């Protein structure tokens, strides 16, 4: 049996990589994929803790996270379509109306 702590450390590493990707990518779609990576890392932690505690509630929360991720992907990609149409670029630096 693999110790649960391995799974949780893997989850933390994946989350950190997601944060790095979000900070360093310039393409809006890739930044969005980094957010999905972070959500996946959190799901792994949920399932690992559910296994550790011997309860199923953690897995139910994973369902809700997946549903929210799907809704977020639908709305977020629609927003990306709008940005691409208005700015004619997918570069995040072109989206600077709120920048001082």
């Amino acid at each position, binding site marked *: *049996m*693999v*110790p*649960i*702590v391995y*799974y949780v*450390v*893997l989850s*933390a*590493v*994946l*989350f*950190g*990589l997601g*944060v*790095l*990707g979000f*900070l*360093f*990518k*310039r*393409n809006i*779609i*890739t930044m*969005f*994929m*980094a957010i*999905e*990576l972070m959500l*996946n890392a959190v*799901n*792994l932690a949920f*399932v690992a803790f559910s*296994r*550790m*505690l*011997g*309860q*199923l509630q953690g*897995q*139910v929360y994973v*369902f*809700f996270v*997946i*549903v*929210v*991720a*799907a*809704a977020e*992907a*639908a*709305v977020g*990609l*629609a*927003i*990306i*379509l709008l940005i691409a149409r208005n700015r004619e670029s*997918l*570069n995040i*630096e072109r989206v600077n109306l709120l920048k001082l």
Partner: protein
Amino acid sequence: MTTELALFILLAAMAISGAVSLILQRHPIHSALSLIVVMTALAGLYLLLGAEFIAAVQIIVYAGAIMVLFVFVIMLLNAGQEERTSFSRMATYVGLPVSVLLLVQLVWWITRGATLAAPPRPNPASTRGLALLLFKDFLLPFELTSILILIAILGAIVLAKREPV
């Protein structure tokens, strides 16, 4: 080394290399394919943890539906190579140290936790138990998520609709 540990190391290496590849690739479609590798590896890890139904949902919903949506939008927008621009100074001088600090801190606190070292209990997971929990104890949140999905679909349609000329 047991088979389970070997499988874990293999899947974890797959997930981490996929995540690194997501960051390093310049073309969005390559990043999307790397993300699919990560999600498949995570599905294998869920199987190792004894959560078969979550593993199936991970493949069907994440690697299937959500990533198809991503790839579809990438192709629709004809997204090319990422442009090289100067990183914002905020990201380099504040973001990188803070994210590395967050990573180190997370790993440190997790490995220190004494309860985590306890041997895991017998696997409670069964698809039947999960269904009972989802449709009895969590019935109201479950119904609310369907409303959430409906609102998201309507929002996506309204946002992506072309303006009448």
